[in-house]
């Protein structure tokens, strides 16, 4: 609508200049936003022998070589980490979505006698927590330590996400709920036949939020899961990218030409294969972000 108004009034020369500056600035901003991932992509497909000699800012691939990817997919730690992350993601999402939907539904039932209690009970935890060590001891105490459940159960429910879902549920007219009751249905019918089907965009955003959380989280696994065979892929990345450990290919090493030089492009290839799945998904859900943000950021 703003457009029709604008087009009716002739743009002045000054306006043109401002527009041009704005577009140029936006393009520069876009480059700054995209460059780091572009850099990783460029490094991952570059020829390792050329890469090692290169000086200066790298804008384009040097040669073309997919060996980094072929090696990365043979790197046992990465594959194991990837597998663990996928298991955590799937199990975690099931737990997250079930618990969040149940909680969000309860919070919309204002006619319940305990509604105030339930709301308060949940909100308190947004402002106060036991902190690192007491939670750690709890996780140990309930026997989750060193199992993948240690990164699933303690984060099974995010109050913030639940409140976002509650507001999506609240926007469904109460008359629909009453009509279910009149037809003899109960609360379960309302939740599964009305609320969830009518809030699919909101549910998709929930899956995205929780999914990104599981995919990118490292700290909980870092303190709760010492067993390297159960650790998620982010911890594998942490070891290589942050602690600077070497990539140990085991017996494979002897078969790799220029193994010493491969480290840089292999690390870049790992960044790409662990980051791109998420980057491919979020644009699809982009138009649903706003709804949650409005309530979400104010309630944070």
């Amino acid at each position: 609508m703003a457009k029709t108004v604008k087009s009716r009034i002739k743009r002045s020369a000054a306006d043109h200049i401002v527009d041009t500056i704005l577009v140029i600035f936006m393009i520069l901003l876009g480059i700054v936003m995209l460059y780091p991932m572009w850099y990783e992509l460029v490094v991952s497909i570059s020829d390792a022998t050329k890469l090692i000699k290169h000086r200066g800012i790298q804008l384009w691939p040097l040669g073309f070589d997919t060996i980094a990817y072929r090696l990365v997919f043979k790197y046992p730690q990465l594959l194991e980490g990837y597998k663990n992350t996928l298991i955590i993601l799937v199990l975690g999402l099931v737990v997250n979505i079930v618990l969040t939907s149940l909680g969000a539904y309860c919070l919309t039932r204002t006619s319940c006698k305990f509604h105030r209690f339930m709301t308060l009970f949940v909100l308190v935890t947004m402002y106060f927590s036991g902190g690192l060590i007491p939670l750690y001891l709890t996780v140990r105490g309930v026997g989750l330590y060193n199992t993948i459940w240690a990164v699933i159960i303690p984060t099974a429910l995010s109050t913030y996400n639940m409140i976002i879902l509650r507001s999506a549920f609240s926007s469904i007219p109460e008359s629909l709920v009453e009509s279910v009751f009149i037809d003899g249905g109960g609360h379960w019918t309302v939740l599964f036949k009305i609320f969830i089907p009518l809030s699919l965009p909101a549910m998709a955003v929930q899956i995205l939020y929780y999914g990104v959380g599981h995919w990118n989280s490292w700290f909980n696994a870092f303190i709760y899961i010492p067993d390297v065979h159960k650790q998620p892929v982010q911890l594998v990345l942490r070891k290589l990218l942050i602690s600077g450990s070497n990539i140990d290919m085991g017996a494979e090493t002897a078969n790799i030409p220029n193994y010493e030089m491969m480290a840089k492009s292999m690390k870049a290839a790992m960044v790409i294969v662990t980051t791109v799945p998420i980057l491919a998904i979020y644009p699809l859900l982009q138009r649903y972000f706003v709804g949650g943000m409005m309530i979400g950021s104010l309630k944070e």
Partner: protein
Amino acid sequence: MAQKKKKVSFAKDMQKNYPVYLMFLPVLAFYIIFHYYPMAGIVMAFKNYKASLGIWGSPWTTMHGFKHFYKFFTGAYFLRTVTNTTLLSFLQLIFGFPAPILLALMLTELRSNKFKRLMQTITYLPHFISTVVICGMLIEFCLTDGLFNQVGALFGAEAVPFLSRPQYFRTIYVASGIWQQIGWNSIIYLAAIASIDLQLYEAAELDGAGRFRKIWHITLPGIKQTIVVLFIMQVGRIMSVGHEKVLLLQTDGNLATSEVISSYVYKQGFGQNNDFSYSTAVNLFNSVINFSLVILANYISRKFSETSLF
């Protein structure tokens, strides 16, 4: 919350709503085990925790239980961690807070809707990259032959190992934070701008207002309430800087500026000292301050705007 003021007997409510309470049961259990029970565990801040005795069996400390707090307040790390924490979030506030507002204003001014949507998608992207990867890239870019020094070399600057020098840590932390969150944080302002009545702009145009006057007199007042509320809430978080990114970017060289309360809590608990009680005490100090600030912030924001946060 609109409460229906109907008097319902307990039994009747149970009969009618028992599925709701059944649904709430797992949620209740979750909160009790992973939120409320750890809250009770805070008592260990006043004890000398011994693993063999457990939280409840461990003996109280001297000084009526306040030994760990005394140790923290009188130790060398108190001033350092509090200063670093506050400064880091203060810089985040000055530079990081206005950035998404400016971006939202600029995005709204773009004439092409397609270009606007594309820019939104691009600026959201860093939000979805994991902290580990972001910090890994930062570490690589900060090397003496890394991106930042390559760019510096174009201007004739000498190569500096940025992450090993304390004077650069705050810039790196805050700038990368803006880079990562500017797009994501602009969403809420874009939504606020979209809800401004278009007739206001039309009227202003008829009065001959240019785009900057429209921004100044219509857009900014239109999103003022959102800005104020978010600003106050961020001020309320001034003493809470997360430990994840700090721990990943910390090096021996930048400890002087990079040690914040939360990273100190982590190290005291899991580092060489491995003193669970002391770590919990420091964390409790931080939580109490944060809690008071948030309550205060909420009180102030309620005065400023009609929207109450809780």
